């Protein structure tokens, strides 16, 4: 059988038990760095360093996964041969990482925690990946990062928005550039209160699982603090397709703003059904987080609806423009928000390895922790040491009408709410529940 993605049999033939910390690395020829640091996880590396990218390739978010994978591929190409941000980041050489050419493997998560974990195991055990990255859902990210902590492999989150990823479920081996529900709510307050006034009644429908609950509580907290009055918030079970029964209970004459805390496909259904029932004639609608598959599925229903996005190509600053340009040159299409995250987090990891001078995971973690940077187009940022959550700007957008929408363009940027207006200290909010776990 000659089907394979990556062909270097010799390395895989080496007996090496992933997970057997301290007992691994039997018969491994030691490199210079291997003599400095004890073996841990997939360190020391045999052959070229391999990154593992876990993206949804089947299921409702497969188009988003494809775009992430494009960005990952481009990131590896730039790391190995220069180009894009690599030319500007002083840490990176454009000649591989620590002068070694990077290889990568990719695998499907199907937006399902179980499949994702199985894929991650394959990458860690068979492909000896030194770093994993990817994901399009919080359940997937949490499942993989927990595995990575056990197996002592670095994980760079991609799109995950739940407070828990860097809150209750946070781990030492994972870092998140993406903002969370808490920060989304904070970021929405200034532009939304600015547009709709400071004294409103709001009503929430939220998806009844961790992500939905964290969005709901964050919205209640911050819009409550801004002087709005919460009338009610109703949980909708995950997997609900028809929201009409919930929507018909929204009191039309008293509600000013309706929050639909549903993500992706559920969000597309609840939003279009709300429009169908004419709720937008009596009140304004806000969604916490947009993505492209949702916008496509909701079509014209997103018109004038506020929300946040991971990133958008309309953001006008040098790193953003440079990324859009590079992506467009390479693939002849406009990158999505998760693509920018994928690209940024891969390069951040590589830069940390360069600074550490080794792939030894605990040293790489120490280089990422507490790092201040301003090179991915989200303003001055801090990767916090206490919870591994980036403190950064959050883009707030409004949906475009159906006639204004075009390929890759669904939103207009309203505001880039800066990091100084967002965030929370290390002992409050989600960070208060975070126990990162050991380095080794």
């Amino acid at each position, binding site marked *: 059988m000659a089907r394979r993605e990556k062909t270097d*049999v010799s390395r895989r*033939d080496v007996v090496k*038990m992933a997970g057997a910390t301290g007992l691994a690395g039997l018969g491994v020829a030691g490199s210079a760095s291997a003599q400095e640091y004890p073996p841990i996880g997939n360190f020391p590396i045999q052959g070229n360093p391999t990154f593992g990218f876990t993206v949804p390739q089947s299921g409702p978010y497969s188009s988003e996964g494809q775009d992430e994978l494009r960005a990952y591929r481009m990131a590896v190409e730039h790391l190995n041969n220069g180009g894009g941000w690599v030319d500007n980041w002083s840490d990176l050489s454009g000649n591989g990482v620590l002068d070694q050419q990077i290889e990568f493997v990719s695998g*499907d998560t199907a937006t399902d925690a179980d499949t994702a974990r199985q894929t991650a195991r394959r990458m860690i055990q068979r492909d000896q990946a030194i770093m994993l990255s990817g994901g399009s859902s919080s*359940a997937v990210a949490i499942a993989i990062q927990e595995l990575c902590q056990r197996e002592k492999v670095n994980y760079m989150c991609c799109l995950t928005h739940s407070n828990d990823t860097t809150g209750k479920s946070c781990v030492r081996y994972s870092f998140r550039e993406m903002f969370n529900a808490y920060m989304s709510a904070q970021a929405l307050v200034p532009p939304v209160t600015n547009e709709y006034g400071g004294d409103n009644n709001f009503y929430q429908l939220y998806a009844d*699982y961790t992500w939905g609950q964290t969005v709901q509580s964050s919205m209640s907290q911050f819009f409550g603090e801004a002087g709005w009055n919460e009338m009610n918030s109703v949980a909708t079970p995950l997997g609900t397709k028809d929201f009409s029964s919930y929507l018909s209970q929204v009191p039309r004459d008293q509600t000013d703003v309706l929050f639909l805390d549903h993500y992706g496909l559920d969000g597309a259904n609840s939003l279009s059904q709300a429009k169908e029932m004419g709720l937008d004639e009596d009140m304004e609608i806000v969604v916490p987080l947009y993505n492209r598959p949702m916008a496509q599925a909701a079509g014209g229903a997103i018109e004038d609806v506020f929300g946040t996005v991971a990133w958008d190509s309309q953001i006008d600053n040098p790193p953003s423009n440079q990324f859009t340009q590079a992506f467009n040159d390479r693939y002849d299409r406009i990158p999505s928000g998760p693509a920018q995250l994928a690209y940024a987090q891969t390069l951040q990891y590589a830069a940390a390895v360069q600074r550490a001078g080794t792939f030894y995971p605990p040293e790489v973690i120490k280089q990422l922790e507490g790092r201040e940077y301003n090179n991915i187009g989200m303003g001055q940022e801090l990767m916090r040491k206490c919870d591994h959550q980036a403190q950064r700007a959050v883009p707030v957008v409004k949906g475009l009408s159906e006639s204004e929408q075009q390929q890759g363009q669904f939103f207009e940027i309203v505001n880039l709410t800066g990091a100084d207006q967002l965030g929370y200290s290390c002992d409050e909010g989600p960070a208060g529940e975070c126990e990162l776990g050991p380095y080794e």
Partner: protein
Amino acid sequence: MSDEPTETPDATDETGSVVERTQRELPSWERIRESELFVVAATTLAVAIFPWLFARAPVVSGVLQGYQDLATLILIWGIFAMGFNLLLGYTGLLSFGHAAFWGGAAYAAGVFSAQVSSSPILIILAGTSFAALSAWILGFISLRRGGIYFAILTLAFGQMAFYMALSPLAWITGGENGFTGVELGKLFGVFQLRYPVPGLDWLVGTWKYVLVGGVAVLCVAAANRILHSPYGMVFRAIRENDQRAEFVGLNVWRYKLMAFIISGTFAGVAGSLFTIYSAYVPLSSFYWTTSGEVVIMAVLGGVGSLFGPILGAAIYLYVENIVSGVQQLTLPFTGPNEYVTLVQEPVVLMDGFGAYWHLILGLVFVAVVVLFPRGIWGLLMDFGSAVRKLGGGR
């Protein structure tokens, strides 16, 4: 397989009594193969060398692209499919709700490990008992109607379990995020599951595999014993014609319930092992696709044979986890890094091949249902006996 003993023609030259004696005293290959000792010994051997062959052996593992944990997972699903087949293959009852037992056991095992004891053996016992109990209750209700009603009722109960775990019981199950609080202690209080077995790690790998492999061998032995007991005979009679079995005075309903409970128990063993394997219980373990997967595995491998479903599980998981990651389908021996390279430039047959894995499985499944009701195992057996007839026959 063919039931005709493949006697050599020379034997007929002797007197009839001699033939009888040789048959009794020197049992034929077919007979040896049926004996319990042989089944257990062969299974043990296969289970022991499987992870080495699959994940570490030179050349073979390179071609197969396997890895240790997938070998473990194949055994776990193999137990599940084998138990499922005791129902479908031997009594002809098609359940679309076995996720309820697999998932129920997985969650019970997870909760037990966090609340009561983290001993792997006790975890398995707890999960399995929970599954057996649920199988008894659900079987009692579902078996009131046969045929398609049974399939739909089991499907409905499985989905009910899923929605219970998703929302009303999310405070126990963790809802969408799954159950993450699994605690795993040492096997027999001595062996850390994630550590390699000293001296044998090149062969079997970790203690985790030893545990799963050991349970798998026990399960095969148990299933083999059941099938050769009077129970097994009755199950087969029911599959052939349950009315006739009823006329002979058998309480068919009781036997069906028994088969259902036995098969649910096997699902429970597998589900508990899955919790130990992954240290995590995903919500999807209750979803109907899990029931669907075990149906596909059993039918693909071959219902009505002991080992067919295990083969089916191996094929399914192999395609799901290895083939699905293949980006390009190339002709053998083309391109660099082959063992024998004929052409340096790889001849690409299909790009993005891995994405078709589900479709391919679906098509193969349909083909098996239509053309080979005894599955791939049945095909191999037919092939094997044909070869033996050709080679040893004359």
